[in-house]
């Protein structure tokens, strides 16, 4: 019996770790979506974080914690630089600017010596342990719960619902949008750092447009009205593809189909605020029956 568990764990622990990392990435885009902004640069931020953290542990011998935090800060700073000119403009500009940004990150990583160019970085020390992932995820969930019921959470939601109305409430929307974007970049960067330290190998290919669409799909499928939506979406979409391996190269099309269907028929995603009330109501009915 224990043998079975060990072998199961050996086969699936990477998948399990990935569920956590994808959950973090989903939360990283959730915070920008929750103020009505679409960032397609979170995969690139993850990449910056991954390279920063990996290089710090590999070349500078930095403690893991420091590497991770640095891997969060650098993308956050980059996000501030991109966000400030972009987010004063209407909603579509961030999506457009961040779309091309992933390309820039790829090109820069390819052309730097320290990053190993197109060969990628091999031999990143295996430092990420399960409790690291649980701890970081715990902090994130705690943060988002606190955020939701605070003045900051209300401001983000107001901006999301109606930016003009928010602005005549005296809210300086750009300011909060920039911070939300930078915090998202920070989260993506940390997730990248954690990811790099259990996959052993990273290359610029992993941080382009397709992973950015994956991250978006996590959040859109799960729903962006509560923090549980992105987490549910990322978990489902991380485990599901294992079941759809037989689709081969067409597997990616599944993401696209999900995006289109959810946007059309399930605009609030699978988990939203009503989910909880509906669930309660459902169980009450069962009791009564």
């Amino acid at each position, binding site marked *: 019996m224990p043998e079975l568990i060990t072998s199961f764990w050996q086969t699936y622990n990477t998948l399990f770790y990935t569920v956590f990392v994808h959950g973090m990435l989903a939360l990283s885009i959730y915070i920008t979506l929750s103020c009505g902004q679409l960032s397609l640069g979170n995969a690139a931020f993850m990449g910056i974080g991954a390279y920063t953290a990996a290089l710090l542990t590999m070349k500078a011998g930095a403690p893991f914690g420091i590497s991770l935090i640095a891997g969060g800060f650098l993308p956050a700073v980059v996000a501030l630089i991109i966000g400030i000119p972009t987010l004063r403009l209407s909603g579509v500009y961030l999506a*457009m600017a961040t779309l091309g940004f992933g390309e820039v990150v790829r090109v820069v990583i390819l052309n730097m010596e320290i990053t190993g160019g197109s060969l990628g970085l091999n031999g990143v020390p295996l430092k990420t342990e399960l409790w690291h992932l649980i701890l970081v995820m715990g902090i994130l969930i705690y943060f988002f719960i606190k955020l939701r019921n605070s003045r900051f959470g209300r401001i983000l939601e107001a901006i999301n619902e109606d930016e003009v109305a928010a602005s005549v409430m005296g809210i300086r929307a750009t300011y909060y949008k920039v911070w939300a974007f930078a915090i998202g970049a920070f989260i993506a960067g940390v997730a990248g750092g954690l990811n790099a330290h259990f996959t052993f190998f990273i290359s610029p290919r992993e941080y382009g447009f397709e992973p950015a669409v994956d991250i978006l799909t996590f959040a859109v499928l799960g729903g962006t009205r509560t923090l549980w939506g992105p987490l549910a979406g990322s978990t489902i979409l991380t485990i599901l593809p294992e079941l759809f391996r037989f689709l081969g190269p067409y597997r990616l099309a599944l993401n696209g*189909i999900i*995006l289109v269907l959810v946007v059309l028929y399930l605009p609030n995603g699978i988990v939203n605020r009503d989910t909880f009330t509906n669930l309660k109501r459902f169980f009450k009915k069962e009791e009564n029956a």
Partner: protein
Amino acid sequence: MFLQQIANALALSAVYSLFAIGFTLIFGVLEVITLAHGAVFMMGAFAGLIAVTKFNAGLASTLLVSMIVSGLAGYLIDLIAVGPLRKRKFHHLAPMIATIGCATIITSTYQGIFGAEAYRFPFDFVPSTSYDIVGIQLTLLQLIIIGISLFLMVVLIFFLNKTRWGKAVRAVAENPRTAALLGIPVEQVFRLTMSISSAFGGAAGVLTGLNFNTIHTFMGGPILHRGIAVIILGGMGDIRGAMAGGLILGFSEILSVAYISSDFRDAISFGLLFLILLVRPSGIFGKVIERKG
């Protein structure tokens, strides 16, 4: 050498402009950024390739096939994903996300069919003669690309300004509600715009395939980035802007590759985009979009 670069830059710019015109027209009329425009471009290239390699099509019919296939794709994207979103009040990001979905579906399906390798047109599809025009050496291929692009742009401008449907498109771009009051079938205009614009994207695709003589399933991504840079550069929704923006980007890329380094070619469009967002976010010709109370 420099004059040769001008020839290259002209051909490149022509294709960029052609791609961006459709892109910007869709934004101007539907107020949607279709991130599927790159995928539609790739479809056009492959359609042209198949027309040539399997059916021995000539240049004109190849172009036509590309435009029809891509135009149809645009029609379907609007029918299935974008159009239904207009009927209900949705989050403003919804149409863009739907087009990302379409792009992913198209691209991965094509990757499933055609794989990742590069395809080429037959060696002698366009003879490799060249001409000297005011001191610039232009290959026949470059002339064809520039000529077809200019021709299509002129046709589009004629269509928009002189025909009944074209005028309807412009009226809807101005204000869909007023247009509807005037009896213009707004829904049909939206769909027509998606189709025409996508057909232009397809033409740009096949011309790009000819220009570099490579076609692959990843070709939609880079052109999409460039298209975005071009329409922001020119001013969103502005056709003249898309043409001017295409020229600026084409020349910037060719000249920087020639005189600086080719490593960062793919980052130039982002650099230009970022620069314009800093100094003049409304673009060269763009008006500032005003918010309503």
